[in-house]
């Protein structure tokens, strides 16, 4: 890591439903699970010796915590001061991980799910006031496009936990019509996988966290590379389960809505550029790592003239990296406008 000793620390933050990442101009990079937990009572506080816990640590201690996933379902729940506070705590924690130097000004760009930006913009802004010297909020797929420099005739499909965001880049700031959001995303896959597993293995003792970990490790659509075999307690006894079909069914539930939305957005683009658009589709977010998904989308594109779908190489930091690029390229005068 190179130490940034200049007067300004630029930060790019991906505030995700499931995970949040930060990349700093100093070179610091961190990712945390988007969980914030407050001890439920004095006893828990004494045991945990902390007023607030984050990420994996919060998850591991969840029985003693009031646990919040601040962007559940892709946006801040209105009316829940705790969720606004959770966003604030999480961002403050991420910034502290980036380690701003004493006296250094912090200019941050925060990428959020597109739905959160649309529905909860003011709540988001309220939640983040004061945690940086100046702050800009952008939609996550836009940040990804900016970071990858795919700004013309490209379609970003950002498959997160709470939402799948689509953003067509046509050489201008994307309009409402060029963006879409689906609730078919990672959490929906988790729920479906849990349902399928409970139906098939009613005696198995499963938690959503375990099921989510299996999905993240083994997700695929199409033909499996190998059977998905896991171990889970059944009536208290560790038991081997073959969950290949369940994982496939849960993951494949994402494909039809994504294909439908992708083709619809392409069909609405300028006909002269539809071919270029079809050949420049980028999968981002955690869902981009579902094995076989890009191929499944290309199979669908083959029916309308063919196309190319690529997954970002670094899904964890693609959004934060794009946000950092925006932060670094915004002139100082703009940062002054963004204060307050």
């Amino acid at each position, binding site marked *: 890591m190179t130490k940034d000793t200049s007067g300004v620390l630029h930060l790019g933050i991906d505030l995700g439903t499931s995970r949040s990442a930060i990349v700093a101009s100093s070179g610091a990079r961190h990712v945390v699970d988007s969980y914030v937990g407050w001890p439920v009572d004095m006893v828990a506080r004494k045991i945990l010796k902390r007023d607030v816990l984050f990420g994996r640590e919060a998850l591991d201690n*969840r029985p003693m915590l*009031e*646990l919040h996933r601040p962007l559940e*379902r*892709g*946006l801040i*729940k*209105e*009316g*829940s001061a705790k969720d606004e506070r959770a966003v604030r705590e999480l961002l403050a924690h991420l910034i502290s991980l980036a380690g701003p130097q004493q006296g250094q000004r912090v200019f941050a760009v925060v990428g959020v799910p597109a*739905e959160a930006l*649309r*529905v*909860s*913009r*003011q*709540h988001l*802004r309220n939640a983040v006031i004061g945690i940086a010297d100046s702050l*800009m*909020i*952008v939609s996550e797929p*836009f940040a990804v496009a*900016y970071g*990858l*420099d*795919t*700004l*013309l005739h*490209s379609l970003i499909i950002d498959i997160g936990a709470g939402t799948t965001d689509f953003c067509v880049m046509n*050489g*201008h*700031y994307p*309009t*409402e*019509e060029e963006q879409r*959001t689906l*609730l078919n995303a990672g959490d929906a896959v988790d729920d479906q996988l849990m*349902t399928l597993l*409970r*139906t098939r293995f*009613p005696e198995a003792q499963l938690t*959503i966290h375990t099921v989510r970990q299996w999905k993240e490790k083994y997700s695929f659509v199409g033909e499996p590379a190998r059977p998905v075999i896991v171990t889970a307690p059944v009536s208290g006894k560790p038991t081997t389960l073959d969950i290949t079909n369940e994982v496939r069914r849960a993951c494949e539930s994402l494909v039809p809505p994504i294909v439908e939305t992708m083709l619809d957005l392409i069909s609405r683009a300028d006909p002269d550029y539809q071919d270029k658009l079809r050949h*420049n589709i*980028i999968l981002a977010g955690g869902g981009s790592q579902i094995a076989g998904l890009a191929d499944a989308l290309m199979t669908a594109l083959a029916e309308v003239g063919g196309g190319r779908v*690529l997954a*970002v*190489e670094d899904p964890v930091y693609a959004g934060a990296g794009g946000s950092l690029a*925006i932060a670094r*390229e*915004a002139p100082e005068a*703009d940062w002054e*406008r*963004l204060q*307050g």
Partner: protein
Amino acid sequence: MSGATGRSPASHERLRRALVEAAVDENVALITGRRPAAEPRRRHPRFWVTWALVVCVAALLTATVGPFSIGRTTGARAEDALPDAGPVAPVPSLALTPLPRALAPALFDLRISRVVVDPGHGGDDPGARSHTGLAEKEVTLDIALRLEKLLAEAGFEVVMTRERDVFVSLRERVLLANRAGGDLFLSVHVNSIPQPLRRGVETYYLGPTDDPHVEQLAGAENSASGYTLADFRTLLEQVFADVRSDESRRLAGAVQNKLFAALRRHNPNLEDRGVKRAPFAVLIGTEMPSVLAEVSCVSHSDEAELLRQSAYRDRIAHALAAGVFDYAAPHGAPLLVAAPAPGPADGPGERSHQ
């Protein structure tokens, strides 16, 4: 991965700079409560047809609700509020008055006659489960059928999105509700909260942004200068969305109040988790005031046990019906609603004190 735009380096740099400027402008607009400058868009010929319709509707809205007119109240008679000028007359006054916060349904002689009841989940989709295996789909269907009966007895026409244990996609539910021309949409769900000690009821609606630029839009945009027709179209669409959303919020409030009041008596530790907004697909797609009620927490062992009891489900159904009556009553129109049979706790008869 393609990183080039196919433009010259200088042109590419300009594009990046323009995008950053647009992002900054959008944020500054949020901070200052102003609407960002509109992105120039291609206009399809259909736009002008749409625009003509929008202007007509705007004039009607101005005439009947009066949100665009200085000093008018929602109680003004429609003919009193008709604009004097041509169809674009409402534009200048937009800047001077707040956007409508509530529709005055009495002006339209609205009746709530057709209620769409949507039992969550079903078929292959069991929804949440209690630790003892009680499935959400079973509870929601039973409560919804009880609710259907109560509403029908009260004179409402009830449309069910499902009446048995079958899977109905969210899209189909939305289509069904819209095609049926429902006046209200009430989706019944049971919550599951990661913290097993939490319990409570909450009701969701799809709301507009609370963005101050909407609140202050008029003031920011009144200079008839720089305010394009496309901007106005977008604005009006937002206004219409707000009106429906206000109604949804009111319905959500009525349902939540009745649910909490009715169930707390029998579930003293029940939490009022409040009225909230969320982008549930059924709320986004439906074209009428729509809410989604999480009527209990199946993840809480006591509540799961209560949900197994017919009497508790009956209480929930009565509370939901009471919420609908509560919402429908202020519409002022003769509802032709017969007094429903009193429930075990809070029955629809409670509406008399509204």
